[in-house]
């Protein structure tokens, strides 16, 4: 009787995962969807621990299990609550890596079990063992790649690891992957070569590192999303291994949804997944693109900028990663309020991939209590730029680069951008003239309409506030 209750628990959990994902994809229900999935997960975990398994056994080693759960829960909660808004994408990457590592560890333990079984009784049904080894090896490869890749992605996003590539890296990567898969196939046919298993483990880790290394930091969200779906598949391998339906459904669900999400993210940047992975943001490419852009830019003083803005009818703010780094969202909101008091209409133009993750700017501005209806999506914003007197670009670069429209040689050619040039004046706040994340020059900065306001976004905004107040 009670083993059926576990089945019901798993059924409930599977349904909550599907419902949760469904609700997560609508703004109004997203938060509830997350809680629904979390509740389902708790049911599955508690059920697994206390209820008899399908084969009738009850799990033991409760001390170890609860110890692990406690440590993981405390560390996970603290880390997730302490993390700054700007650092959330790398946090997600780190957690994803933990999931991948978990899958790889399960494979390590289970392979050890299988080897021992095989050594004790060589006459075992070989096809049964082979199926198991196949799944274990798949879980190991996918889990390890996901783990190593996520850690590199995490390091890249928080600036600890720099882009690194060398000629022929793509070929080396393919060779590594082929070696790991080939060794895996050999191991499935000859399951007694247990040393080979650890070789595959090392190869997969190496592949994960080298696979993410050359991809530019701006593309990390796409990579994380892809690795996310990998971990889903690795979890599903575990489900196959234990004939555990909730792991199977949850894993495959995330694998499929994650893959689609990856493609959707690429589409938002108007790039193909292949283009992101094989990488077109190479150094040579960027150099070629920047050669075409040169000229003089003009700087604007703080008081001039303040004057311009306080006598405008409408100001559009274009936030970018610079705003996030400087943690200037609250100051930005303050500037908005001060301008409103002077009768200036202020709106925000949000590019879907501004910042380091899609939705980054929405989250950031929402944190500073900027009203939701002031945030314009790209299409709406592009319709309104021509009625704006001033566009204030805060640490955004590639998303306002006209080269995406005009220069077929540019690596970002074809990406939809915010047409800030349509406004009467453009003020660009940046820390320096250094190119943005994609490593390409921006012709916008050299246009006669554009004036540059150098400095840290928070400091500049603070000073702008003071200037405008004193006018």
């Amino acid at each position: 009787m009670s083993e059926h209750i576990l089945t019901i628990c798993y059924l409930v959990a599977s349904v909550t995962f599907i419902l949760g994902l469904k609700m997560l994809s609508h703004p109004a229900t997203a938060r509830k969807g997350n809680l629904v999935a979390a509740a389902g997960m708790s049911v599955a975990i508690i059920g697994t621990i206390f209820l008899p398994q399908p084969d009738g056994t009850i799990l033991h080693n409760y001390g170890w299990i609860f110890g692990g759960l406690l440590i993981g829960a405390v560390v996970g909660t603290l880390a997730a609550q302490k993390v700054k808004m700007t650092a959330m994408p790398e946090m997600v990457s780190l957690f994803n890596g933990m999931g991948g590592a978990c899958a790889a560890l399960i494979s390590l333990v289970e392979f050890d079990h299988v080897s021992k079984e095989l050594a004790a009784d060589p006459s075992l049904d070989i096809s049964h063992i082979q199926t198991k080894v196949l799944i274990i090896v798949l879980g190991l490869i996918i889990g390890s790649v996901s783990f190593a890749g996520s850690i590199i992605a995490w390091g890249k996003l928080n600036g600890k690891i720099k882009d690194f590539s060398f000629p022929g890296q793509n070929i080396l990567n393919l060779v590594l992957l082929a070696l790991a898969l080939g060794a895996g196939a050999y191991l499935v046919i000859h399951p007694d070569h247990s040393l080979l298993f650890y070789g595959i483990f090392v190869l997969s880790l190496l592949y994960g590192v080298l696979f993410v290394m050359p991809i530019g930091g701006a593309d990390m969200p796409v990579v994380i999303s892809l690795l996310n779906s990998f971990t889903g598949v690795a979890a599903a391998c575990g489900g196959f291994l234990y004939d555990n339906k909730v792991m199977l459904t949850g894993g495959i669900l995330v694998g499929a949804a994650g893959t689609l999400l990856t493609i959707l993210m690429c589409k938002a940047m108007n790039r193909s997944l292949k283009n992101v992975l094989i990488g077109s943001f190479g150094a040579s490419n960027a150099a070629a693109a920047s050669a075409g852009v040169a000229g003089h830019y003009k700087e604007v003083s703080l008081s001039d900028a303040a004057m311009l803005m306080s006598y405008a009818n409408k100001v559009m703010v274009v936030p970018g990663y610079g705003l996030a780094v400087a943690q200037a969202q609250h100051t930005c909101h303050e500037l908005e309020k001060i301008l409103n008091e002077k009768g200036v209409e202020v709106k925000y133009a949000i590019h879907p991939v501004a910042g380091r993750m899609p939705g980054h700017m929405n989250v950031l501005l929402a944190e500073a209590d900027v009203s939701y209806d002031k945030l314009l999506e790209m299409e709406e914003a592009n319709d309104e730029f021509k009625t704006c007197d001033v566009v204030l670009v805060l640490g955004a670069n590639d998303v306002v680069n006209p080269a995406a429209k005009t220069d077929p040689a540019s690596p970002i050619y074809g990406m939809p951008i915010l047409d800030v040039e349509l406004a009467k004046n453009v003020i660009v706040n940046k820390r320096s003239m250094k190119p943005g994340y994609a490593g390409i020059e921006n012709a916008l900065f050299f246009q006669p309409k554009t004036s540059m306001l150098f400095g840290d976004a928070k400091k500049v905004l603070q000073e702008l506030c003071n200037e405008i107040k004193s006018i």
Partner: protein
Amino acid sequence: MESILNWISANQSIIYIVILMVFVGIEVIGRVPSVLHTPLMSGANAIHGVVIIGAIIVMGKAEPDNYLALVLGFLAVILGTLNVVGGFVVTDRMLEMFKGKKK
């Protein structure tokens, strides 16, 4: 060939689940607005933390003298829990930012 066909017959319910789940996964998030890409990725990240169930099973079935299984299993439980708990909490924090900002 024969063995592959046998294998498919023996595992057909699992194969059905995989195929259906692929379609469900794609269908369910097909119309997500780009604003929600990151929270959705984070939520999906938490859901694949279901791999923790596997870690618990490894741990719960380990013999008391099998130190490899005990140590690796323990580590797997910690990492899996990090994935689940951290994933859901981070997603909730992201989505909290949107709360009450809509009419």
